């Protein structure tokens, strides 16, 4: 055998070469990692008009939401390419007092809040963890956002969270039941959290306690009324002129006008997840200062617009904008972005008339409360089977203008976070 000393020398050399190779690799690695660097920081520096929650395409584990600013909703395209604050999983988005809350779901059980800093750059304001889900959000006052954990199965507590907006944390958790019937095996699913004059209004619909979201009883509209902030139960408001109020996954079961009159809509459509439908889709009103449905007011939207309501947003001057279901044949059909089964109408709440918005294609649905109302116009993300665009709707004339193309699945929301 050879001299062992030469062994070690050669061994050393080999080792050196190996180390060199490794370093080379590391350098290569660093070079490769600087992919798609964004030089769009200037874009964020510019004064901004709108902040959008942009949902990318792809399956849930690849795609996600990006929160980004744009000055222009109406031309060119909106893309998250190289811009936007990345989110982790599927999120609900909610704007509260110029703070945008990005709310995770079940396994991704945290909330991250964003605001614009003085330069107009989106910055994280805070974050907190919740236990299971936050399924429904609402507005209590400037400092307080409401959010409710709603179990999917069995007779179980609903947990109302009072979220402190300035500190982005949970201030208080209150267990409540809303409504249940063991005899009929039914529990309540809330569809709005609305505070007015020291009262919390919680409209709800009845789902089967076995957790399949079937709705055997849809002949009555219900609202549970609590004192606020004490949250003592006061009464149920009931009305049999229409079915249950609100829709799963949408925050707008009840909306308020400038005079604090509350309008509650009933969809009770198959496409919106109701397995039985008994009453026409329409709108009831709770007048300012009253704690009962206005017995003289029922707007039969189904008759006026030729379809059931999917989603409703108040647009000012006694007008609301609504998605109307044109094809009610598929259960949960309204929740797919590309399922073109909705038309858009302007509803005159006072005169109880419906005007179809012109230049607006049939389009798919969404979650949460994504439309942005700004002084007689409504901006919305409209997804068809072919593309997604921002549309600007002029409420007075009931006409829409096609704006920027969305280079993604949809916008989960359009917001103006400027203080």
């Amino acid at each position, binding site marked *: 055998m050879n001299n062992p000393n030469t062994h070690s020398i050669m061994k050393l050399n080999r080792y050196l070469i190996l180390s060199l*190779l490794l370093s080379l690799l590391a350098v290569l*690695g660093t070079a490769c990692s600087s992919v798609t660097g964004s030089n769009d920081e200037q874009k964020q520096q510019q004064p901004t008009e709108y902040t959008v929650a942009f949902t990318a395409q792809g399956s849930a584990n690849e795609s996600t939401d990006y929160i980004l600013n744009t000055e222009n909703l109406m031309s060119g395209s909106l*893309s998250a390419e190289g811009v936007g*604050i*990345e989110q982790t999983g599927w999120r609900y988005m909610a704007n509260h007092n110029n703070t945008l809350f990005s709310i995770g779901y079940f*396994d991704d*059980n945290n909330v991250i809040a964003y605001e614009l800093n003085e330069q107009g750059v989106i910055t994280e304001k805070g974050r907190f963890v919740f236990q299971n889900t936050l399924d429904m959000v609402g507005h209590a006052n400037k400092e307080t956002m409401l959010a409710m954990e709603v179990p999917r199965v069995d007779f179980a507590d609903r947990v109302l969270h009072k979220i402190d907006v300035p500190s982005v944390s949970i201030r208080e958790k209150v267990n409540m039941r809303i409504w249940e019937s063991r005899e009929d095996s039914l529990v309540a699913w809330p569809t709005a959290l609305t505070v007015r004059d020291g009262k919390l209004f919680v409209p709800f619909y009845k789902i089967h306690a076995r957790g399949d979201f079937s709705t055997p009883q849809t002949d009555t509209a219900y609202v549970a009324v609590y004192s606020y902030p004490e949250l003592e139960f006061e009464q149920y408001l009931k009305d049999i002129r229409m079915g249950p109020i609100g829709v799963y996954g949408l925050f707008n079961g009840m909306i308020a006008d400038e005079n604090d009159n509350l309008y509650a809509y009933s969809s009770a459509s198959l496409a919106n997840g109701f397995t039985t439908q008994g009453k026409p889709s329409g709108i009831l009103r709770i007048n300012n200062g009253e704690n009962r449905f206005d017995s003289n007011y029922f707007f039969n939207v189904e008759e006026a617009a030729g379809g059931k309501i999917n989603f409703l947003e108040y647009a000012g001057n006694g007008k609301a904008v609504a998605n109307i279901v044109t094809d009610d044949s598929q259960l949960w059909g309204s929740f797919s972005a590309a399922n073109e089964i909705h038309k858009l109408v302007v509803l005159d709440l006072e005169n109880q008339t419906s005007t179809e918005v012109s230049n607006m294609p049939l389009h798919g649905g969404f979650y949460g409360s994504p439309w942005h109302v700004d002084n007689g116009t409504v901006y919305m993300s409209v997804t068809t089977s072919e593309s997604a665009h921002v549309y600007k709707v002029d409420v007075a004339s009931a006409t829409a203008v096609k704006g920027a193309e969305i280079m993604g699945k949809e916008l989960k929301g359009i917001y103006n976070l400027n203080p």
Partner: protein
Amino acid sequence: MHVRNTIPLLLILALFCPAVPQLAAQTAGTGISGQVLNTAGDPLAGITVRLEGSTRGAATDTRGYFELSRLAPGEHTLVFSAIGYVSEERSVLLAPNERKPLHLTLKEDTLQMQSVMVQGKSEAKLKREEAFSVASISTKSLENTNANIDDILQTNPGIHIRREGGLGSRFNLSLNGLSGRQVRFFMDGLPIENYGSTFGINNIPVNLIERVEVYKGVVPVYLGGDALGGAVNLVTEQSPRHYLDASYAVGSFNTHKLALDGQYVHPSSGFILKTSGFYNYSDNNYTIDVHIPDPETGTYGEEQQVKRFHDAYESRMFNLETGFRGLHFADEIMVGLSLADNRDDVQHGVSMDRVFGRVHTTSNTKLGSLTYRKELNRLQIKAFASFLNSHSGVVDTSAVSYNWLGEYERKNNQNIAESSWEKTLFRYNDEAFQSNVNLRYQFSDQHVAVLNHTRSYINREGHDPISTNPVAFADPNTLNKNVLSGSYKLRLFDDRWSTTIFSKLYFFNSNVIGVDWDGKRSEFNSNTFKPGYGIATTYHPLEGLQAKASYEKTYRFPDGYEVFGDGLLLLSNPQLAPENSNNFNLGLQIERLLGSHRLMAETNYFRRDAKDLIRIQVTGLTSQYINQRSVVSSGIEAGLRYEYERLFFADLNTTYQNILNNSKYENGRISHIYRDRIPNIPYLMSSQSAGLKFDGLIVPHDRLSFTWSGNFVEEYYLKWPSLGADESKYVIPRQYVQHLQLGYSLEDGRYNINVACSNITNAKAYDHFRLQKPGRAFQIKFRYLFN
């Protein structure tokens, strides 16, 4: 001659290895032993010694010694051969209980080139010379180490394994960009996809396995299955002799691993009794860094270090096989029985923000098997059948919410369980039948045909005693796969060129009854037939240089798991179609021996053009497998190995893969992420190792070995790379984890001790987003080997 080297090593040994009594080899009976030298008088290692007229044989060890024992009295002819040497024959007459020495010198074959390999070809090496793109890894040199099979695979080019945590945690093996169930696992050529998690490569100790063959993209027909991206075949110990291999390892995190593998052979009757088994346990209570949220406000606290507290894992397997070899109607006929089970505490959900303290899963498998082998002149027959019964369950019955300090509070809601929406004791029962018949016909030295039929049938039934809802598989679901495949191999030009063409016919049949959220039952039947085909060709222009090319049109049918779901978080999808892919490999390998230096290099280019890929789609809490994506994966892998005699080796393997989204449309709309890199999959990996071995260091027949290894993975994005501001993007950070091993053996490897330190730098490493892997850990392993 090693005296100068020994002193510091002796010190190290004194630290780690108390004196082991020196025991003499006791091999009774009739036999032949001896030594083979070259013309210069140096011992020749790896020379094949074949006993003519039988399948028995041996190879010379590093000092040129060989031994053939338990021979029948009478005349025996031994054939000594190796590439680069002129073969020699010797006849020996043995009296009962006589042991004859036999020493001989082999001459170099001057007709062959100078750079020939001075080594007999091991089975692993023969595999590597096939036309297929294959990594064949002999575990011989690793059996003293603490490694599981996954650790060993990790060090090979093109193979990457991602783990969620410690021992027993879920793993995902990726082979040239295809991963998960796209890569099929086999044991001794038989698919083990239904065998349950205890038979996973993260459980099976290296001591039960002789070698691992990894076929990349193109899979020979004898592995009868529907592998989209390749196959991993674990080959168990194939020795014809008695042997016993027992080992015990103990290490950090209260980890214990026991492995046993043994065989008894009764020479005159051919009776065989084989047994193997293992036991793995770990608390997996390694330290991680977390932010613990305030239970009231939900806001995160400062980062702190905590120990995982509900992550214990335990698995057991016992296998007994018995039968006969050398009967007139069967070269081998065996029946076997395996029992396996495991229990896994679940520490957290998809993210580490959801901490669990009580959820656990269990599984157990009972497996019966029958093996038959017979060679009739030119025809080789192999048949195998197995029946298994397995139970898997989830126990999630507590409405509590834990934090990382192990403290818990009652849930806001007493109806929501820890990990699931509803308290569950869901269990499912699988019954599976599997059979395989392989016929190989050798027309001549140049022409070989193989015909293979593999069938697998699985029936799943589920129940949940505490669920108030309908449960999945309350009605049995069945899945039936048949693969009929044939190949033809032709070797020409003095074996320099070899080509195999093959075809695989897939017959898939499923019957699923699904129960969805609204309790609606739907029954779905499917019958699908798909033909696959391929070609593999190789050419040796020079000795030591080999070029390979292979192609296969592959299919993978959904597993029961994907069609049926797991009944907990995974929904069923009876409409799932098979995935398909066009796989192409082009490779070059070189092996040069220059005096005492040996250099081996290989490089492969691969391309996988896959369509209808089955992907998991997550919706809130539930998920479902769907046909969704087309992906093109291409890349290059390179491996380099240098050896200096038997003293030193160094290895460097690097893989670069570019996996692109090839779906032009997303839900009917033009995709904006077309040709973007598929997120959450690593694209640049490298592994390195280097080691030293000293033989006969302190006492004759001992060995000291020292090995360093490192594993590098470049940072990669969690989400689409093109989207989002760079500074806000979530990444799985770059990792570089290094390990050290020190081993000492006595009596040619009969007594072994090995000390290992993994993750020596205590690097914070992640294979999955925010799921931290174990830090520095120590292990010591004792092994006794008799053969």
